[in-house]
Every structure is written in structure tokens, then in C-alpha cells.
């Protein structure tokens, strides 16, 4: 509606959502396009639920209104469900098949949905489910999970893969460039199949 392509990246503080959103922002700059975004900082990062909004070609505010995201990238199954109302009708979800139960489940005896229940609920949307942790390990470091996710999602993002890869090279620590390039390509290949 505002003419932007809206991506919401969600996960748990510490999983690398901010680096993933920085890569998208940098890729927009490389293509000479406007971009707006917003993210969680401060105490909320300490193992809490975190969100990064990225609006490619965004001209106005940084926040994606609920029901308007074109793409949801989630590093955790439960967080995918928690933010699923942000997706617009027909929007796509790229989700890591990985579930960290919140500590509240243990300390307050709360009931969490099972992995199968979550996946069943997510299937109401266009869903691309992948084991990004395993792929990250295969590419050389479990820390590249966020770049695997971005690679898988890149099939649906209106940015050239070359721009995204250039942004990856620019932003990840120098020693890990090759690992992350591999992680991106593995993710992208998988993303092409779903």
C-alpha cells in the first residue's frame, strides 16, 4: 500500500536478526534503493522475543503494520507463530525448523504447542520450512544460521542475489566470509525448492 516490500525478521535475542536486517539494508543501498527499518535494542534483547522490520523502497515510517508483511523470516518455530498475524494474505513465511521453549514454560509450568502443532498452524500460510542449523553447520559454522535463512528467503526478496552476496561479504567478520557465502548459497538453493 505504501509501495514498499515489507519483510519482518523475528527470532530470539542473540540469534542474529540484526545482522540479517543489516545485510538487507546494505543490499538496498548497493541497488540505490530506499529502505526503512526498525529493530529491538536494549534489555529486550536478553533472550527475549525480537523483531526487525525492513521496508524495501520504504519512504515513510519504519514499522510494518500487522497484516501487511510480504515476507516473514523466522529463526524459531514459536516466534513464527507469534508474529504470523503480520503477514498479508498470500504472504510467504520462511521458517527455521528449530524450537527453543521459553524459560517461562519450565518456571511457570505454561503449556507450549508442540513442534507438529506449530507447523500445522503455520501451514495456513505459504510456508518454506528448513533446517537452517544443520545447513549452517554444513557450511562451516552454526553461527551462519541467519545467513542460511536469508539465502532461503532471497528467492522471494526483490533484490538481486549478487547484491545480497556483496552485502554479506561486506558485513560478516572477514574470517567468516567464505563460510557465510556458502551458507547463503546453500540456503538459496533450498529456497528454490519450496
Amino acid at each position, binding site marked *: 500500500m505504501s509501495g514498499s516490500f515489507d519483510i519482518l525478521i523475528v527470532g530470539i535475542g542473540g540469534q542474529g536478526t540484526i545482522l540479517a536486517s543489516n545485510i538487507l539494508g546494505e543490499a538496498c543501498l548497493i541497488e540505490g534503493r530506499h529502505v526503512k527499518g526498525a529493530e529491538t*535494542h*536494549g*534489555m529486550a534483547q536478553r533472550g527475549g522475543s525480537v523483531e526487525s522490520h525492513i521496508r524495501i523502497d520504504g519512504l515513510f515510517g519504519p514499522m510494518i503494520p500487522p*497484516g501487511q508483511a510480504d515476507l516473514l523470516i523466522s529463526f524459531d518455530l514459536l516466534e513464527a507463530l507469534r508474529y504470523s498475524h*503480520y503477514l*498479508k494474505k498470500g504472504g510467504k513465511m520462511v521458517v527455521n525448523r528449530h524450537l527453543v521453549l521459553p524459560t517461562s514454560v519450565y518456571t511457570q509450568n505454561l503449556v507450549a504447542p508442540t513442534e507438529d502443532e506449530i507447523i500445522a498452524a503455520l501451514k495456513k500460510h505459504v510456508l518454506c520450512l528448513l533446517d537452517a542449523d544443520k545447513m549452517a553447520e554444513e557450511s562451516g559454522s552454526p553461527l551462519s544460521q541467519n545467513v542460511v535463512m536469508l539465502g532461503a528467503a532471497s528467492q522471494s526478496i526483490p533484490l538481486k542475489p549478487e547484491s545480497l552476496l556483496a552485502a554479506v561479504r561486506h558485513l560478516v567478520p572477514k574470517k567468516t566470509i567464505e563460510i557465510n557465502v556458502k551458507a547463503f548459497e546453500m540456503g538459496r538453493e533450498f529456497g528454490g525448492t519450496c
Partner: protein
Amino acid sequence: MGRKYLLGNEAIAHACVESGVDFVSGYPGTPSSEVIDVLRVQPDRSYYVEWSVNEKVALENALAAAWCGIRSLCTMKHVGLNVAADPLMTSAYTGITGGLVIMSADDPFAHSSQNEQDTRCYAHFARVPCLDPASIQEAHDMIPEAFGLSEELGLPVIFRPTTRICHSKGDVNLGEPIVSIRKGEFHKDPRQYVVIPAHTRVLHKKLNEKQSAIRKRLVERGFNHYKLRGKIAIIASGIGATYVQEVLPEGVSFMKIGAYPIDEEWLGDFVKKHEKVLVIEELAPEVEEVVRQVAGCVPVFGKKNGYAPYEGELSPPAVAVIMEKAGFLPKNPFPQVDPIQNLPPRPPILCAGCLHRGAFYAIKKVFKDAIYPSDIGCYTLGLQLGVVDTTICMGASITVASGISHAGDPRDIVCTIGDSTFLHTGIQGLINAVYNGANITVVILDNRITAMTGHQPNPNTGVTACGVESPPVSLDALCRACGVSFVESVDPYDITGMVNILQEAKRRKGVKVIIAKQMCVISARRAGVKRGRYGVNPDICTGCGTCVRFGCPAIEFEDEKARINELCSGCAVCAELCPVGAIVREGKK
């Protein structure tokens, strides 16, 4: 310099360098901290930069620098301005010669704050100009203007971004950095800088006489502007103005307010050209009150007649709802969607291996039916562990503890305060408690860093903001100098040791201080400290749940047995807690 994708605070920091800033001080506070965090690590700086011990100290330092004719920046979060309010109010009287920009970042919706106060009210109160950006680019562009305006008017200028400016990101057009060669020089002028009654009365009159010129100048500088597009109008400020532009239909006039005080005559001319006016702004009705003063018989819609909320933050859908209510049809209807209910929440929690968790555990074990005043820092998350009964503002744990002690409640009182918060405004409370004979136990949670806001160093760390070594404060000697005779240091990973010292403190009367000292687990990881990892031997684990109730995110419970995941940092506290010795260091089974 070109275009970059930056965090709002990074863009603000860059704009300060483009303005040739000479002196920077501040105290960390979300969402303001990254401005100094960026400035303090720049190579070849031409400016001085410090993390001060609190906001009052920071502002007085920056004010003095501005009296010396150099460009000064002072940063803080909105509640920090309460601490700095004393120098703020009178700095408007003395004025400055070098530009002084006070950045006070507001936090609508209190994402990371104890309240939703509005910095614009302070600007109004102190009678100094205030700039209120609507986007990252505008925040960037306002900074050089703020320094220029401050010098032109001889007054401090308040710069008030909000969380959605500071912590949003975007492509920003940057200018060239300036290397300043200015040197500060103090020119004695007691009539300006010694505010005895005879001087201050004159200075107050001068401040009041400047007001009309300030209003006109802010319109001339283009911070406040409008477009006539029809018979009805929306007036908006800050990020609210950006949200309005996202939904503004054709045929509705639009006025954007980016600076205060607002020129009433100019505003009145605009309002009177319309049949009705809607005001959109976050938090206090600062714009709306002025609009109502000048509106005459033009109906005004806003907070004061219930169309817009006083609290929380705005968003494009929230603005659309307010518009509909007031009869202004937004361009886009937003889909009505609801989040899925009953998912277990995932609030922030203390990290795996956090020293505070061990300290809280020991406190609860020794002081079962006690009152636990606490303070502001990561350890406020001790709320989830049932060991935080009060938090009001920085430094208010020891004072609340002594207040409850003198109020006559017979229970034990154990308060917790971090090292940075203790140095910020905790010391005065400790002196007061000793002086007035309170019966309290104070636990200083000493991780040697200001962790919650992003690991800024403080006088307890041993380095300055720029990484230069400095003599670390001795908390032990400081507490003894305040008159405390029972001061003990302990490692909170050593639960037995901490329990023993707490029991000793419980037996004594008066003010007792225990310094629970251990590195922040994030700092330790960054410093390369490796303690190994722990695991649960499933053959020994009885599934009693003692370790799980400790609340560490590294401990999970699967198939009636505990399990330790990859978050483990090796603090070994759970190994000490396990009643059957099932938790052992991995590789040493």
C-alpha cells in the same frame, strides 16, 4: 560523504561530527546510548568524549564546555533529564556561547523505561527551543541546525528523538566530517555565571524577552511548515507526522511541527483557514494545547477530547483509527488482524551464567520473608525470580529500603543495586541510610560494567569511554567511607560462600553491604574467558526440578530429566544446587 544504511543513533552521531562537535558527555540509557557508543570509538577524534557518572554531572560538564565557547553535546534518555533538570533550568538563564545540544531520547510505550514522560514538556518548562525529528534523515539534518540555533540564540537546544527514530534504520544522506580546532576559553562574567538573586532576576527577564524571537526564528528555519490542501487539516509532530503522511488522503491540509515553541500567530492563521483540525502527536498534548489556544471557534480533535490517547506509541494503523474517529477518512484502511492467543510469552531474561541469578538465589535462600527493593539494570529481571519488590528510578533501591526500615515494617529488608547505578545516584542513599540508622542489607551487584544499555564502561571498570586506563573506584573503600562497618565482597557463583555472608549480615543490625562481584557473562565471553560446559548425567538425575526452577535458559527439561543446552557458560552454580550431584563439567564425567 554519500548515502549509508544507518541506525538513527548512528546518523545522529555522524551529524555531530559533521557539526564539528568539540565536547561530548552523557550517561547511557535506552534509546540514547549508541550516540556516544559510536562517537567514543572513532579513530582520530578531534573532540573530547566521556561517559559521566550521571546525567546531572554530564550536563554540568557540557554546560561548562559551552560556556568556554566550544560546541558541546550531552546525551541521555528522557528520565535522565529528571536527574539533569537542576542544571537545565538555570542553564536557560545563564545561556551559553558555544552551541549546547542536549539530546534527551523519549520512549513512548516504555519499551525499555520506567515511564512515558515527554521531554518537550521540559523544554517548555525551561523555555528553551526543542527540535523533534520525524525521520532519521531529519534527525541527522537537525543536528547542525541545533548547534547553529543554540549559538545564535545563546541558549541550550533540546533535541528530542524517540525510540522509533533512535532505533530505526534507513538510508541516510551524510555530510562531510569536520575536524574542529576550537579550544575552550572561559571568560569571567559573574553577572552571567554566578546566579545570585540580583543576577538571576535580570537573567530571567532576558530569557523571557527572547521567546517571541525564538518562535519566529523556528518558522523561518523551516522546522515547522504546512501545505494547504483543503477545508480540514491535520497537525502532527515527531514520528507521528511520518505515520500521518503514510495515510493522508487528498484534500486534507497538513502541518508538520518539528520545533518548539510554536509561533501562535503563524499557527492561528493556518488553523483559521480550516473547518476542523486534528492533532496527532505522541505522549503529552504539547502541540494540541497551543492549537486550542489559537483555534477560536474552529473545532479541535485530539487527546483532550478523547480522540487520541495520552499514552503509548502511535503507528500508521493507530493514526488511521484516530482519523476515522474524528471523521477524517484515512487513505488506506488497515486489515483487522489479531495475534494468536495463549502462546507462552518470551520476555527478556537474565543470561545463562548471569551473576545476578546466583546472587538472587542466595538472597532468597537466606532472607525468605523479606522485602526486596531493587533498582534499574539487567537485575530488574529478578522480578521473574520473585526478588524485586520495588523499582522506581535510578538509585532508589537503598533509599526505598531505608524508608521502609524507618516506616516500621518488622521484616528484613534486602535491596539490590548494580555498580553503575550505585555510582549514578546510589551513594547518597547509602550515606543517608547510615547517617539515619536504617536496618538494611544492601547487595551491590558488581559486574564492573553498565551492561543493560550495551556494556558501557563506568568508574568501576578501570577504563574510560575511549578505552584509556583509569583507576577503578574501590566500592569497598567507598562504602566504608560512607560509614558502613560491615562490608564484604563475595563471588555470587559461590552460592555457599554468599549464603554464609548473607546469614552473617542477617544477624547484625544497621546498614550491611555485600558486594557480589563477578564479570558480566557477556563481557567475559568477549574477553575470551572459557569455563567449559556442564552437562546432566541422566543416570543420576532424579528429575526433581531444582535446577530447572533456578530459571537458567541453558537448563531444559525433557522426558522427566534435566538437560543443559549450548547456552551454558560454565558458571557451575546449577552443579552446586543439584542435590544428587548429577550436573558435572563435560569431559570430566
